[in-house]
């Protein structure tokens, strides 16, 4: 498996890092799962370039990124496209396109006055980004400083290697094609709707707080990052403040610190916390949160476990359909590219 110098980071933008489907099974040691915050986007982009779902790609935050490919290969982006171009030609999300050595992918900055105002983009390259596998994953743990490329966010001038692509030369250079991106399902006033199960401490909150959680409109503040999305809105209060002992938190957990302003934990959040957990965003909706625009509005909808499972099934069906579609178009089929399992997005 000879790897070759595949790409050079000319400009990383606000934050770009190597991520795959995450580092699982080590929470007991305090190691967070990390990984692409939108595993649906990462999976789609990977399939579009013939990669396994678990191949590593690059997560780009708020555009402003430039990457030069040093070898002929094939790429796909998913998530917000930030006006992406390859040598000036538009690259749409969820399209699979060939690139030749020397071509440059450019994502515009976030300061554009269009309707599209997402947050993150996921880039897959045929063969996947080849960095060492540490504790079962190629993801960058930015907080602990290991994994990915030298345990840190990408910097200008970084040169990354690529793995060996599953595609043959003919497939690599095949003309561009695309699939329809998943629907973010913004409601009428462009708020992102997240489905949420009540958390273990839900009942400790005042009735007004519980009602405001579901009824209120929440703003996603710019103080959000890979550890947590910080919301602003109604001040959530408990009926009485009981001290909490350290207990597990997982991506999607909505914890409420003393300020009363909730934080939805993301992939890089710590494994245990001591703040009350008023709710947990269902797994099927975490990708929407990863793409929700800063200063944009969120609405939280109460669901139960059965609805959460139905939503997850829907996601699996969607991915299976995409897999079948790609297979019938002569692309790498599901047999070579197993449908993602449960481990990708807990």
């Amino acid at each position, binding site marked *: 498996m000879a790897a070759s110098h595949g790409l050079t980071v000319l400009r990383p933008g606000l934050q770009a890092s190597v991520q795959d489907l995450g580092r*699982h*099974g*080590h*929470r*007991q*040691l*305090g*190691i967070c799962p990390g990984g692409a915050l939108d595993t649906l986007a990462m999976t789609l982009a990977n399939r579009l370039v013939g990669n396994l779902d678990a191949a590593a790609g690059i997560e780009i935050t708020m555009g402003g990124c430039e990457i030069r490919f040093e070898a002929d290969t094939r790429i796909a982006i998913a998530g917000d496209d930030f006006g992406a171009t390859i040598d000036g030609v538009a690259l749409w999300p969820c399209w699979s396109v060939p690139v030749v050595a020397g071509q440059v992918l450019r994502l515009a900055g976030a300061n554009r006055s269009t309707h599209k105002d997402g947050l993150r983009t996921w880039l897959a390259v045929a063969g996947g980004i080849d960095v060492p596998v*540490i*504790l079962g994953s190629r993801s960058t*743990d930015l*907080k*602990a*400083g*290991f*994994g990915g490329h030298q345990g840190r966010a990408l910097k200008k001038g970084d040169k990354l290697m690529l793995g060996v692509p599953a595609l043959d030369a003919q497939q690599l250079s095949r003309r561009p094609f695309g699939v329809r991106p998943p629907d973010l399902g913004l409601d009428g006033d462009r708020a992102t709707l997240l489905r949420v*199960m009540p*958390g*273990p401490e839900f009942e400790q909150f005042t009735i007004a707080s519980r009602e405001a959680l579901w009824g209120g409109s929440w703003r996603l503040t710019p103080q959000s990052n890979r550890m947590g999305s910080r919301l602003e809105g109604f001040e959530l209060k408990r009926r009485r403040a009981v001290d909490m*002992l*350290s*207990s*597990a938190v*997982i991506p*999607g*957990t909505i914890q409420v610190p003393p300020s009363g302003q909730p934080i939805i934990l993301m992939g890089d959040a*710590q*494994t*245990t916390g001591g703040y009350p*957990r008023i709710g*947990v*965003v*269902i*797994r099927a909706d975490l990708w929407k949160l990863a793409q929700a625009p800063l200063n944009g509005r969120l609405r939280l909808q109460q669901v139960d*476990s059965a609805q*959460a*499972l139905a939503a*997850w099934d829907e996601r699996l069906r969607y991915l299976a359909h995409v897999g079948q579609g790609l297979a019938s178009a002569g692309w790498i089929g599901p047999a070579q590219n197993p449908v993602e*399992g*449960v*481990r990708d997005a*807990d």
Partner: protein
Amino acid sequence: MSDAPLRLHSLGEAALLCELPAPATLAHQQRIWALATEAMQWRGVHEVLPGMNNLTLLFDPVQIDVVELEMQVLSAWPQLAAAGIEGRRVEIPVTYGGESGPDLAEVARHTGLSPAEVVKRHSAGDYIVYLLGFLPGFAFMGGLAPELATPRRKEPRVAVPARSVGIGGEQTGIYPLVSPGGWQLIGRTSLEMFDPAAAEPTRLRPGDQVRFVVERMET
């Protein structure tokens, strides 16, 4: 001792929280470790995460229904003996005070003990790792002498040096990595607490018995 009732609660559709009423005790924690060990054998459970006085099971709801999992937990719980896992004995050499422990004087002031006495009592303690969390390899330990308890700093540090030994409230612990933190820093160890490339990435594991050994004391 099967008297402690276990409260179950979903943490999303793919995690189940099992918790005991306060206070946290070593006996409770030992049974929690035992439950963790047992649950890892169950179909559909792919990760366990002990907290303080609680345990969270991460499971695949396609493989096991949450109601079935709850029944398994509740029927296993009364059968479990407290001796869950065999903790190792780990000695942590510490340079106390000086640049390594900039808050030693503050802890002395708060406790009314001399810095030397704080060090003596801290290094005389037998500590048990209850859980790892917060950071990779960060151990929450029980066993701090009550008179050494000192509140966290009002202004947390932006960057606590790696391997710092601190006191936060009634707990003591070691920062494996550079990190923001509010604990009072009394010393630093020369041991690496986290090495992601090692077969066992963290020096400490839940259940380990820890002693701090005075390597040096600086003023």
